[in-house]
């Protein structure tokens, strides 16, 4: 990894390097980290290495700013979890948090300095209507006004349209399974819900192995590679933490992925964690996971695609053809979750919608 532009990754792999960075290095590192949504994480690394007092102040202002924003998000998440627990608790349904929200409530080290955009929860399909109704009465409203979008979500997705709280402005994704019903792989949400872990009264996360498998599935099937590096870092962080703190974690991991029909994304997750971040994964696990490895040609293609897409979306990090790799993966992820005849019209519509509704603001001098 001597490639000059890959500084962010170098620092994440070897945080002790932080103490030896030149100002020119910081000038490259801060924008890279900002684009990868890893500024807060970088600050967490700095704290962990106890380097706050020795590093130059100017770049630290940027990492600190993002870190403070993540702290605020964590506090907000805890507050939202409390509110959601009350809503679901009134229906005698457990609150099951997924992804970032789960990392925060379970106080996993991977959550430190991490930013999140919404809270994700998992509810069984047969209680979905009740939950939606109850949340509605507590101020959660659908943020999709467009009936095409609403129908698209309800027919083809594993979640209902995102909800937004009318007074607090927070976003909530309610999932009823972990992959769309049309996807190639068919994990059984009931099995996942049968294994959840309580982290505080009536608040649950997935079991450690399921958390890793879900995170892998999310990354390798959602097509959201803008934050690919951050997601790989999450996975790496989960693996390290559970390896040290969960007896039997490695033994259970691959068999569970096979049971859930999700060995393929788990294979990719382990493979790229090792390749990109040098995660220490026991040999027997890697061997077991080979079951999810695609054929040689496909492996080569995927390596080419992922190694490019997982770089932060910043010009100083691009290998040739990065944006092609990114869009190919976007198509791949849609192919994995929808039959082809559905895919084509949806992609065109989505591209068109995106152009129309580009989420940009008016430049203004006033309050944001």
């Amino acid at each position, binding site marked *: 990894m001597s490639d000059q532009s890959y500084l962010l990754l170098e620092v994440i792999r070897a945080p002790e390097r932080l103490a030896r960075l030149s100002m020119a290095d910081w000038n490259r590192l801060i924008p890279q980290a900002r684009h990868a949504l890893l500024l807060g994480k970088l600050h967490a690394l700095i704290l962990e290495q106890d380097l706050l007092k020795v590093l130059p102040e100017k770049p630290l202002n940027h990492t600190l700013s993002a870190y403070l924003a993540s702290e*605020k998000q964590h*506090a*907000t998440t805890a*507050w939202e979890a*409390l509110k959601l627990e009350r809503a679901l608790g009134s229906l005698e349904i457990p609150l099951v948090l997924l992804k970032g929200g789960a990392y925060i409530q379970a106080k996993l080290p991977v959550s430190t300095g991490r930013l999140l955009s919404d809270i994700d929860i998992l509810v069984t399909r047969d209680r979905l209507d009740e939950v939606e109704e109850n949340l509605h009465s507590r101020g959660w409203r659908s943020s999709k006004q467009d009936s095409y979008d609403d129908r698209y979500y309800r027919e083809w997705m594993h979640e209902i349209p995102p909800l937004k709280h009318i007074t607090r402005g927070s976003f909530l994704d309610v999932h009823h399974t972990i992959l769309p019903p049309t996807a190639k792989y068919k994990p059984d949400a009931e099995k996942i819900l049968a294994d959840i872990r309580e982290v505080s009264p009536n608040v649950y996360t997935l079991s450690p192995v399921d958390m890793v498998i879900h995170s892998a599935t999310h990354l390798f099937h959602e097509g959201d590679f803008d934050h690919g590096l951050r997601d790989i870092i999450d996975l790496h962080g989960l693996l390290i933490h559970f390896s040290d703190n969960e007896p039997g974690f490695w033994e259970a991991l691959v068999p569970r992925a096979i049971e859930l029909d999700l060995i393929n994304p788990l294979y990719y997750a382990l493979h790229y964690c090792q390749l990109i971040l040098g995660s220490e994964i026991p040999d027997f696990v890697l061997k077991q996971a080979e079951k999810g490895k695609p054929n040689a040609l496909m492996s080569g293609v995927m390596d080419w695609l992922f190694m490019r897409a997982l770089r932060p979306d910043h010009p100083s990090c691009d290998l040739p053809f990065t944006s092609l790799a990114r869009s190919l993966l976007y198509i791949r992820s849609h192919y994995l979750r929808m039959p082809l005849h559905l895919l084509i019209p949806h992609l065109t519509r989505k591209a068109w919608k995106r152009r129309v509704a580009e989420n940009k603001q008016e430049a203004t001098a006033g309050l944001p």
Partner: protein
Amino acid sequence: MSLYIPPDFELILKSYGNETLLFHSASGDTLLLGPTAVPLVQRLRQGPLDKQPLFDHVAEELNYEVDDEFISHMEEVLSGLMKRDIVAAQ
């Protein structure tokens, strides 16, 4: 019904001699407490208490008579604080 302040969330009170500001770390809200809410919150910070003695305490602090009007006012104040999760009941 014993009333208490949920211990996980920090409360900071600040006054410059006129009214009292309250920062509620859980929600991140900053509120202006009314004159009867201040002794109520301050008393509960020392430990849980039932509603009746709590209202009596407030009345004594402020030299009010505990009549129907006072009690209905305090019920309103209390329900506002509970709605914002500053005070809880067990």
